[in-house]
């Protein structure tokens, strides 16, 4: 076997071995990864819709909506994802909405990269809880009807703005007072 063939053979062999090993690892981990993602999503939905135990996914007008139901099959609310542009990156928010009452049922910050100790405090219940029971007809203006965090004004504003603007679409699909 001359030098070059040997080089090629070794490279190909290693590549094939690596590919096989990776494909195998992927097969092993993939179901678990999918499961994790699904679990995380469900957890977030349950959290923003109190009383929900199950969820169904619907696609309407380009939006993905999660309808939460309890064990008896009673619809408890709608959840949807929205993204705001924060101080140092996007903020992903899960929002729970009850069309019947025209109120929010809760929000949850899914991911963000705001300043720790400052903007990052939008994750804390002290901030998120104020949206529970908030009328969707409110203005969502920081310092007016949304409490802000000392030292950080941009992150709460970004959250409020993102919720308000996506509510505009959602309330068209599921108008206030209507069924869902």
């Amino acid at each position, binding site marked *: 076997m001359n030098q070059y063939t040997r080089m090629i053979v070794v490279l190909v062999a290693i590549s094939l071995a*690596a*590919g096989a090993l*990776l*494909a195998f*690892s*992927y097969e092993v981990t*993939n179901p678990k990864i999918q499961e994790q993602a699904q679990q995380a999503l469900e957890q977030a939905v349950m959290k923003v819709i109190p009383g929900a135990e199950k969820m169904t996914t619907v696609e309407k007008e380009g939006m993905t909506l999660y309808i939460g139901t309890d064990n008896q099959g009673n619809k408890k609310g709608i959840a949807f994802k929205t993204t705001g*542009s*924060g*101080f*140092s*990156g*996007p903020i992903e928010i899960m929002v729970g909405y009850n069309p019947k009452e025209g109120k929010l049922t809760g929000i949850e910050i899914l991911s963000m990269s705001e*300043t720790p100790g400052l903007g990052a405090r939008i994750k804390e219940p002290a901030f998120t809880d104020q949206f529970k029971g908030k009328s969707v007809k409110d203005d969502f203006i920081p310092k007016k009807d949304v409490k802000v965090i000392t030292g950080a004004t*941009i992150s709460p504003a970004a959250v409020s703005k993102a919720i308000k603007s996506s509510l505009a679409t959602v309330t068209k699909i599921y108008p206030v007072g209507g069924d869902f």
Partner: protein
Amino acid sequence: MLKELFFIIVSSVLVNNFVFSRFLGNCPFLGVSSKTETAVGMGMATTFVLTMTAVAAYFIQHYILMPFGLAPFLQIVSFILVIASLVQLVEMVVLKISPALYNAFGIYLPLITTNCIVLAVALLIPLKNYNLIESTIFGLGAGLGFTLALILMSGIREDMEFGDVPDALKGPAIVFITAGLLAMIFLGFAGLVPL
């Protein structure tokens, strides 16, 4: 569209500078920031390779990995191999077409393969769902941000030669501290661009 591209550039150069805020490319940042001349050469070479990598990563992701469902597990391997061969290729081409250019930054090319900015840019492009032009600009911006960091640091380090840094802090320690102060300053750009 133009606005978005502008934001990508400003973001990767100033707001989220790859060295000072994303912690990438620290090894070459430490290694080649002692002289402004080498800093400029390294910066230029890296920017060039980064821009090309961004284009290559876009095509590989969208035309090879995704269509065949290989993305989740072959991404890393394929990107790193592409980067390594790209650097080799660039080195050969530059040597062929312009020996002068090769002398200017050719010596830095082999160091670029292990510059984690390159792989990071390749990995971030699919993550951020950038289109082709955005990807190119992102690569360019990353390179320019890295170059800026290198030039600033090299200027300070050249001046530091005349200073009297305590023995214990000589070498990487004072570079880290200076990088920390620079990172602090770059935080001033936080919130500049709606990302």
